[in-house]
């Protein structure tokens, strides 16, 4: 499993850790019930502050993506596949709408936007509806 910080991103480090766990899940590289590295191991591997990893794990746990079992470690949640959060769906729809509006004003056509979408799905591979 490979985690890496991107110093060029302007989002906080712990959010980068969260995003990477989510991305690894979306790409099927992390599967339900799979064990995540400990806070110590992940911070040592990424060379980042252990508190950053703890904070990311706490947030992922709050979102129901991972669960920590005392004495055994941290695992990807069993219910992760197919789980749909209605609030989240709404937020995503809104975010997409904003992207579409911004694209329109930036002169990007609908066709181009669709092409981007397909490309991203292809890049993420395997887990989209079209396989």
């Amino acid at each position, binding site marked *: 499993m490979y985690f890496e910080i991107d*110093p060029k991103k302007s989002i906080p*480090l712990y959010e980068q850790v969260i995003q990477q766990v989510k991305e690894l899940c979306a790409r099927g590289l992390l599967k339900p019930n799979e064990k995540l590295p400990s806070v110590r191991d992940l911070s040592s591997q990424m*060379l980042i*502050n252990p508190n950053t990893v703890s904070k990311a794990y706490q947030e992922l746990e709050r979102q129901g993506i991972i669960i920590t079992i005392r004495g055994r470690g941290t695992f990807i949640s069993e219910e992760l596949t197919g789980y749909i959060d209605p609030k989240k769906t709404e937020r995503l729809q809104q975010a997409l709408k904003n992207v579409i509006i911004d694209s329109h004003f930036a002169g990007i056509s609908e066709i181009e936007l669709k092409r981007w979408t397909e490309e991203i799905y292809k890049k993420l591979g395997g887990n989209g509806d079209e396989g």
Partner: protein
Amino acid sequence: MRVKHVSKEIHHHKILTDIDFDIKTGSIVGIVGRNGAGKTTLLRTMVGILDPSFGDVLIENESIFRNPQLKQQIIFVPDSSEALKSYSTKEMIHLYKQIYPSLDEDYYLQLMERFALPEIKKIGNYSKGMKALFFLVVAFSTKAKYILLDEPTDGLDVIVKKQVLKILVEEVATNDVSVIISSHRLDELEFIANDIIMIKDGMVNSRYGLDEMKANYIKAQVAFESDLPVALKDQVTILKQTGRVYIILIDKNHDEIIKKIKLASPLLFEDLPLSLEDLFVARLGGDDDVS
């Protein structure tokens, strides 16, 4: 640990003025500042090598100067340890065991093995990288709760540097120690420190949490048809300018400033990644002279 209103004068010259902050256990604190800002003096005062002219250093609310045994909980690793170079590694451990009775020799041997450091008759014969690792190994073996490091990665190659950062991170994660680092290597501190204290002219200029830094500041490049609007000039920090393109740092109430920028119909307005270095230049730079 609390550094309480510390001031230090050396030969009637004010080096530190009213330095005041606390350090939580299990944290990594970066102390940054330009050359001559007083970083090393601050570290040497925090460990009790120097007496402050005013103020105090407290551990669990007790003064380390009035209760010298508290100094066993703090260890300082200077950037060069010339004084001890004729000692053997065994003599060094023997010496440190006198000062730090809680020194864990098993742990010491374990760390020595892990970093493939041989016991040696003269520490001076270690390479620079080995010396740096050795002093860190000794520091963490003392089981002191506060580890103060002056420029710990200065002059080390990439591989040793990574080993140094690894041991720091692991010690903090496992043993709940606090590490206080003075460094110029802002790019490294940015990821491992959870708190950054900026020192300017012997005073605390500013203090940032790791995440709030990126949340409170925006770095952007903007360009307008004519010059940067005067109304904006006072509200942003200009990091760089080339022609009509400005690289600016927007702090605090940035929503309002962003609105103003958008209203002035910019030709270009793009977010850029913010680094600790940008803040360093914005807060501590200003003039090009070297002090």
